[in-house]
């Protein structure tokens, strides 16, 4: 693995398109670009899908569906606003929730996802992937247990606020409060991690 990484580093930018360049190629209907994005991000997508739907066949469908959505939505992608990785994670999660919650209409959720993607803004996004993962881990681990639980139930199990209230026995208002505090903490932790990265090259 280290060897491959070293070769990729040596090869440099002129040989390897960035994610943003690949997304640009996707806009002009370049199927090879879709293949490259798949090679880069499918393991992340499959890992997340599997954690959510807990079934390999269903998770595979989620991943297929995700890259199809990426292909269809590429025209709305703005590299100055969001990373491709955030887009992919957002699509995977939405598709996984479609499977966890059969009740919601697919069309309505499709429209919602398209809007979420077009608006998505992660300018705080850390350039360095391992730093980013570390910042998220630290932020989540730094949360009080109750807030972390609410976040997990909502994010991975796709539970609504009312369902979380039912499951944990906490009043609905408390659940909402915990959700709010947890996400605000996460966002500011990520923002300050990004500032640190800019200061210390």
């Amino acid at each position, binding site marked *: 693995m280290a060897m491959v990484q070293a070769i990729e580093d040596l090869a440099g930018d002129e040989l390897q398109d960035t994610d943003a360049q690949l997304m640009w190629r996707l806009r002009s209907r370049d199927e090879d670009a879709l293949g490259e994005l798949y090679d880069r991000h499918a393991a*992340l997508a499959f890992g997340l899908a599997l954690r959510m739907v807990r079934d390999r066949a269903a998770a595979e469908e989620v991943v297929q569906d995700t890259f199809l959505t990426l292909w269809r939505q590429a025209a709305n992608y703005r590299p100055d606003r969001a990373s491709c990785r955030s887009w992919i994670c957002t699509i995977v999660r939405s598709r996984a929730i479609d499977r966890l919650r059969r009740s919601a209409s697919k069309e309505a959720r499709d429209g919602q996802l398209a809007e979420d993607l077009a608006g998505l803004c992660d300018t705080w996004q850390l350039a360095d992937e391992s730093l980013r993962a570390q910042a998220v881990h630290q932020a989540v681990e730094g949360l009080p247990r109750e807030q972390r639980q609410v*976040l997990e139930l909502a994010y991975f199990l796709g539970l609504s606020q009312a369902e979380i209230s039912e499951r944990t026995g906490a009043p609905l208002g408390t659940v909402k409060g915990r959700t709010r505090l947890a996400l605000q903490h996460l966002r500011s932790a990520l923002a300050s991690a990004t500032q640190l990265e800019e200061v210390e090259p």
Partner: protein
Amino acid sequence: MADEGRTSSSCAEVRDLLPAYALDSLEMGPATQVREHLKECPDCRAESAELIAAVAALAEQVDPVPPPP
């Protein structure tokens, strides 16, 4: 102005709901309320976009698993 169906929620109300909205964890009613407000309010829209991105970052907690070929 006094269009019955368009009693727009206040920014303060919506800000309270945005984190749960970003997590896709709101019930249908409040979610619709937020969506309607976002259509008309660029400030709340910007806030929502950042929260959705923070939610996307939660995926970093998961170990990658190569999908079957």
